[in-house]
């Protein structure tokens, strides 16, 4: 009985549950029905309270609505809108209307009238504001319909008198976005709202609410952006707004003034409180300068930024920005800069300064001192000393822009920029160094300035030092002492931070070639030669000595008298350096040297550079080898590859090209070797060893082709096709080898199928290139295609084998510029004997610092790989922010790699290396997809089957000693 009862209970219970379930599911079904409007209608009708309705609407808003049903939904919503008493629901409806009219493909003309009607009886300000927002959306969706726009603007004008700031805000925004821009339209319409929109907006510059004032200025700016020429009359109004109490108003006003100053630079405005008149741009410049000492840093940043783009300002005003009249006890004082300059021009070197050296000199007429001028006085002095680094950076940037357009200003601002090298925030220092580099064409550094600049060389930040080296590369120095000073400081830097070697050498190279005449008198001292005595030969491996030689040799290039000062070993060292550091040491015309003949006269263009010639010649030779016997071909290839590799080492500018071709030839060599194996003549299973060789060759060729395709920047489609062709050959080879070594036909079927597909896709991708490929493997293959498709796998293999042997070697055309992606891990150095200890199970952060060259899109492709001794490998994707871009084609990766492992008994080494990830989908053959739309269009594209992802190691691995300790309990 009890059991029966229990069962009954259960039965009943389950029934109830099921029913509920049904109920729920029906509701769900309705919601997802295609007719959205109906569902919504039902929902809204069901809603008993405003809160309920709101919930429904919120749910509804989460799902997209199809274009066809938008209008229906809008009608339903409007219907409910009129019925609804609760403001919050109406607000939501209003916002939904806006959302819906944004739907792509939907044209909101049909709902304009209804939307405008809703405004009529609305009492709630919030809802009104929201409705206006909706109208704005509708208006922006209908750019082709001026009459609708006109109506909307009219509506907005009507609501401008609303007492709520939100509504006025939106009205102004709407007018700004939709207001008529051309004068003609306004006349045609001839309606009341077509009154000058500028005037309407201008009236609201004095609104009592700061938010409305801001909106008015923004609307004005919006009109400007849409192409309306603002009236000059606004200028005086805008000037008044600069003294507003609220920072957002001031910030917007600064922008407006800037816009006006660009529109009417040459108009004349009177200076209040005097009879003088000045150009508008000058006046605006003065006013914006004034804002650099505003109370709010947001305004200060804004002002400082805009100053940079006011290039029409008169130089007289410009120079005032750097002038802050110093005084002490009412007596004129000279700035430290002026004192330094004077010391310099009087020929005296800075003596130990006495107390009172800066003692004020002349008396100042108290009436003439103007402590706060309305002019531009000292704006940059203030900006550069600001509390917030954002302002300082903006000021430095502005200085940079102004200095680029005015050499005299560049000269003047130098002192200030040099001062910024000692800022407390690294970013600011870096920025000012970069700025200085940009304007360095206009300036020559004085010795005392150089001194300050060079002092920064000891900075512990690599970024700063490298930026400074770059700067020194393009600096003009005025005296030989300056050069000497620079050299001494650079050598000091070298001893302190040996890793800077390359950068310092490069810097000295440019320093030497820019100032040959200044280096000349220094040569005996630098080489420590003596007129009578032989001095000991310096150590050739000393980086400092190399640095000195780099400076001298580069100077000697344009100074033919210099080699006379060299001693014997210098010539020997020259020969050595020319060979080992060819990118730093230029060819010199040295007396009594063989090199003289080979050193070409400067008239010959770089295209006919002997090394380039050599490259082409050797390639020519290779491509004509058809007539040679197989042995000869192999030898020729081997020699050429060796030559090319050497050439790449010698000539840095040709390195990419040489390596690229060498790799290609290497592939060819491997292919030839593989085809020469005896295995082809003998029954397969007997020659397992050779077989291994051939398949290894095929594998290596594949790898090399990926390298060729993805590691070089500047590869064009002509090269890509050849690379793909080589890959196809390798695949054919692979297929043949497998066919010969495996028994049974089944696996071959699949492979053949796949290969034929690949041939097919090759044909599709490179159809335009096919005519250039006469006699090649693929050419022949395509001829045979009909036969291949129908024949059995063994047949296919046979055909492939013969075609592969008969096919000609394709000529690889070289692109203009080719650079190989390289990476160099600077840190960790891999020299440490101290293991990095950490508790197992926890992580330790390893700082990785590497330079990358010629890597395209490093953010997407460069990965860090960590290999643990147990064979475990870890791939880390660095954050995009970890990559910096110090120069074109160069990147720097500074990131942290987190390591973790279980406990080890003793320290062991792990390997860290950089990988270049590639994806053959994104290959250069297919049209490159812009980054922004990448994720979307990827879904659209059918994933191609041969999309192979892989990585190429492109840096030397670095070993790091680590020791995970067992955790203590």
């Amino acid at each position, binding site marked *: 009985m009890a059991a029966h009862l229990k069962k009954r209970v259960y039965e009943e219970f389950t029934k109830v549950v099921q029913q509920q379930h049904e109920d729920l599911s029906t509701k769900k079904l309705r919601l997802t029905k295609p007719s959205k409007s109906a569902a919504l209608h039902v929902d809204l009708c069901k809603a008993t309270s405003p809160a309920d309705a709101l919930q429904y609407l919120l749910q509804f808003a989460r799902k997209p609505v199809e274009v066809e049903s938008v209008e229906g939904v809008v009608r339903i919503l409007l219907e409910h809108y009129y019925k609804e008493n609760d403001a919050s629901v109406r607000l939501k409806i209003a916002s939904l209307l806006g959302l819906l009219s944004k739907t792509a493909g939907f044209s909101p003309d049909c709902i304009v009238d209804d939307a405008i009607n809703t405004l009529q009886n609305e009492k709630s300000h919030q809802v009104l504001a929201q409705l206006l927002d909706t109208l704005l959306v509708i208006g922006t969706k209908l750019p082709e319909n001026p009459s609708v726009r006109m109506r909307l603007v009219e509506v907005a004008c009507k609501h401008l008198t609303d007492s709520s700031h939100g509504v006025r805000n939106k009205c102004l925004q709407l007018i700004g976005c939709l207001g008529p821009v051309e004068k003609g339209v306004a006349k045609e319409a001839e309606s009341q709202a077509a009154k000058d929109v500028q005037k309407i907006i201008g009236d609201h510059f004095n609104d009592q609410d700061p938010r409305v004032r801001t909106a008015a200025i923004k609307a004005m700016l919006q009109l400007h952006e849409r192409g309306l020429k603002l009236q000059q009359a606004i200028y005086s109004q805008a000037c008044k707004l600069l003294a507003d109490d609220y920072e957002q108003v001031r910030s917007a006003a600064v922008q407006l003034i800037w816009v006006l100053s660009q529109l009417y630079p040459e108009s004349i405005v009177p200076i209040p409180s005097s009879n003088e008149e000045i150009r508008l741009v000058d006046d605006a410049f003065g006013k914006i300068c004034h804002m650099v000492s505003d109370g709010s840093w947001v305004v200060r940043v804004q002002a400082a930024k805009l100053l940079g783009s006011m290039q029409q300002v008169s130089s007289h005003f410009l120079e005032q920005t750097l002038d802050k009249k110093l005084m002490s*006890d009412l007596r004129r004082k000279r700035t*430290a800069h002026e004192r330094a300059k004077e010391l310099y021009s009087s020929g005296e070197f800075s003596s*130990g300064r006495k107390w009172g050296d*800066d003692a004020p000199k002349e008396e100042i007429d108290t009436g003439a001192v103007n*402590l706060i001028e309305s002019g531009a006085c000292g704006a940059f002095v203030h900006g550069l000393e600001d509390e917030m680094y954002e302002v300082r950076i903006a000021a430095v940037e502005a200085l940079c822009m102004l200095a680029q357009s005015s050499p005299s200003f560049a000269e003047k601002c130098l002192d*200030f920029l040099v001062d910024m090298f000692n800022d407390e925030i690294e970013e600011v220092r870096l920025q000012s160094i970069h700025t200085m580099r940009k304007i360095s064409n206009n300036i020559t550094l004085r010795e005392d300035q150089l001194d300050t600049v060079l002092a920064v060389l000891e900075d512990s930040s690599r970024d700063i030092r490298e930026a400074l080296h770059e700067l020194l590369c393009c600096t003009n120095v005025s005296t030989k002492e300056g050069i000497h000073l620079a050299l001494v400081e650079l050598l000091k830097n070298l001893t302190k931070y040996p890793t800077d070697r390359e950068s310092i050498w490069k810097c000295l190279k440019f320093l030497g070639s820019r100032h040959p005449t200044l280096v000349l008198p220094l040569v005996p001292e630098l080489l420590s030669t003596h007129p009578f005595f032989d001095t000991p030969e310096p150590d050739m491996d000393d980086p400092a000595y190399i640095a000195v030689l780099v400076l001298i040799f580069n100077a000697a290039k344009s100074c033919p008298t210099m080699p006379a000062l060299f001693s014997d070993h210098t010539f020997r060292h020259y020969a050595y350096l020319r060979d080992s550091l060819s990118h730093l040491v230029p060819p010199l015309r040295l007396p009594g040297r063989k090199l003289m003949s080979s050193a070409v006269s400067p008239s010959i263009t770089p295209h006919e550079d002997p090394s380039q010639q050599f490259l082409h010649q050797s390639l020519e030779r290779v491509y004509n080898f058809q007539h040679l016997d197989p042995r000869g071909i192999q030898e020729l290839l081997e020699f050429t590859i060796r030559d090319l590799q050497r050439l790449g080492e010698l000539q840095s500018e040709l390195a990419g090209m040489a390596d690229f071709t060498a790799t290609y030839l290497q592939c060819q060599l491997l292919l030839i070797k593989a085809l020469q194996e005896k295995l082809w003549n003998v029954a397969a299973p007997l020659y397992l060893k050779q077989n291994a060789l051939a398949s290894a060759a095929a594998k290596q060729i594949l790898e090399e082709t990926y390298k060729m395709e993805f590691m070089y920047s500047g590869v064009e489609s002509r090269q890509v096709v050849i690379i793909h062709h080589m890959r196809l050959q390798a695949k054919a080879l692979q297929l043949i080898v497998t066919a010969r070594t495996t028994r049974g036909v089944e696996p071959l079927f699949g492979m053949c199928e796949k290969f034929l597909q690949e041939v097919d896709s090759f044909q599709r991708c490179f159809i335009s290139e096919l005519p250039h490929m006469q006699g090649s493997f693929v050419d022949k293959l395509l001829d045979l295609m009909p036969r291949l498709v129908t024949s059995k796998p063994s047949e296919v293999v046979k055909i492939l084998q013969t075609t592969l042997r008969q096919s000609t070697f394709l000529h690889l055309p070289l692109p203009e510029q080719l650079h190989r992606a390289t990476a160099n891990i600077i840190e960790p150095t891999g020299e440490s004997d101290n293991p990095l200890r950490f508790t197992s199970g926890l992580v330790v952060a390893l700082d990785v610092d590497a330079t990358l060259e010629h890597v395209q899109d490093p953010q997407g492709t460069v990965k860090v790989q960590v290999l643990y001794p147990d064979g475990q490998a870890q791939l880390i994707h660095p954050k995009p922010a970890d990559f910096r871009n110090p120069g074109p084609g160069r990147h720097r990766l500074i990131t942290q790699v987190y390591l973790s492992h279980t406990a080890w008994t003793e320290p062991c080494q792990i390997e860290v290396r950089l990988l270049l990830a590639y994806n053959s989908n994104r290959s250069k053959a297919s049209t490159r997809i812009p980054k922004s739309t990448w994720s979307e269009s990827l879904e659209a594209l059918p994933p191609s089957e041969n999309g192979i992802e892989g990585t190429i190691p492109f840096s030397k691995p670095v070993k790091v000693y680590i020791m995970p300790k067992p955790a203590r309990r």
Partner: protein
Amino acid sequence: MPEIKVTPLGAGQDVGRSCILVSIAGKNVMLDCGMHMGYNDDRRFPDFSYITQNGRLTDFLDCVIISHFHLDHCGALPYFSEMVGYDGPIYMTHPTKAICPILLEDYRKITVDKKGETNFFTSQMIKDCMKKVVAVHLHQTVQVDEELEIKAYYAGHVLGAAMFHIKVGCESVVYTGDYNMTPDRHLGAAWIDKCRPDLLISESTYATTIRDSKRCRERDFLKKVHETVERGGKVLIPVFALGRAQELCILLETFWERMNLKAPIYFSTGLTEKANHYYKLFITWTNQKIRKTFVQRNMFEFKHIKAFDRAFADNPGPMVVFATPGMLHAGQSLQIFRKWAGNEKNMVIMPGYCVQGTVGHKILSGQRKLEMEGRQILEVKMQVEYMSFSAHADAKGIMQLIRQAEPRNVLLVHGEAKKMEFLKQKIEQEFHVSCFMPANGETTTILTNPCIPVDISLGLLKRETAIGPGPDAKKPKLMHGTLLMKDNSFRLVSPEQALKELGLAEHQLRFTCRVHIQDPRKEHETVLRVYNHLKGILKDYSVQHLPDGSITVESILIQATAHSEDQGTKVLLVSWTYQDEELGSYLTSLLKKGLPQGT
């Protein structure tokens, strides 16, 4: 007229012993309570008997505000509160409250233990005094009592220095204390919002100076230290324990860090360590850089700067030592100086001003042979450098602050009279506000505009604001209503309600005016012309032409009759009620100008 009275007890046309009495709307506030460095007698403290001869100070003062911890701003506080007797609240910022007792204790030790003075405040008194202190946060509005409220603003200068905004009703005073408008290595710049006080009391130490960029100074300083250290020399920097010392420490610390230098830097121990501790704590009071980086590393946790031990002075090799006191007149700095003076590789850098008679002053003025106690002659071979690091606003900075705050009056204290005179003239000329500079004990009275709150019913307000065009809402607006003064309160009510409340009957007041127009045409034609004319001008008003030949503009009636004698002259009768006075008088003036010719 209400007025604000200001009487400096100290710091009036003088530096030191800051103490300013302010009475504002019946409240008495004392700003700062400092001592004077220059005196050792009664003059060192302000004359508190000025406030009250007999009676407790607590009854006369509503509160005391201390701007920062320098002794010339807080040195007399224990004397004032414990010995003279004051039990009211004392306001200061948190860092000031923390550091102030350390300095007071130090000051007490020097005067009592070293100089052997009696009748001076004791340690216990300092403690008791600090118990009366109420600490405030930046931008926190503290209600001292129902009417008096104060608010602190950041002032730079030293850690915890603040400017105070004191407000009673709608009258307000801003007292700046000492402030700095340019940021330095450890503190930011002073900032105040546009609070538009009736009076700004500003310091004016550097009233006649416009300073060079701080970067040059810093660079010079660092270069000198660096060069000496590279030469293997020793650098002595005599400092006072708090304030500049920390700035220089940060400067050297970051430089050492940047340049990877290894030479040791020492700081003489004692009081500084305690103070450094507070600098570490009050990170929010420091500048942007320190605030942003303290999560990784607190800048005041010096890596390169270590505590100094007497024995270190004889160590070979380069080093940098910060030692107290700053003027080389006694103590550790003098000892080290004597040890190192003989070597020309070494250097002493004086970062501040030195009083006459001290060793510091002598060497700065170029003396190379010093007579020490015991008739010893010390020959100074080391390099002597002077480097001014000062944290007061210069003339430009003061003007900048005035521009930020937009006060109606300015009063200068804490500066020399002659220099103030110049600045005063400048301020009056640039900002067109009156500027005062009272001497000690001299009272300045400043008249303020009273503001009288009036209640208005919301209905009336809405009704009145709805009339007339909107945008110019920022301008003063004409409102119609009746002002009722009843039970010590003001109310603005509608006329009807006023009549009702007062039980009065309403009287109509009507103006009529005759305007003569030369018009030979018939009456109704004239009327029509007038109608068209008005209609053309008054677009926003309802102008109607009634069938009986009269015109109404809103509620104003215009009738035309021919002149009894001259038919060519028409008499326009304009009549309006008192409520329409504005429009009525406008209309009459319009009609008096005559009708336009033609048609």
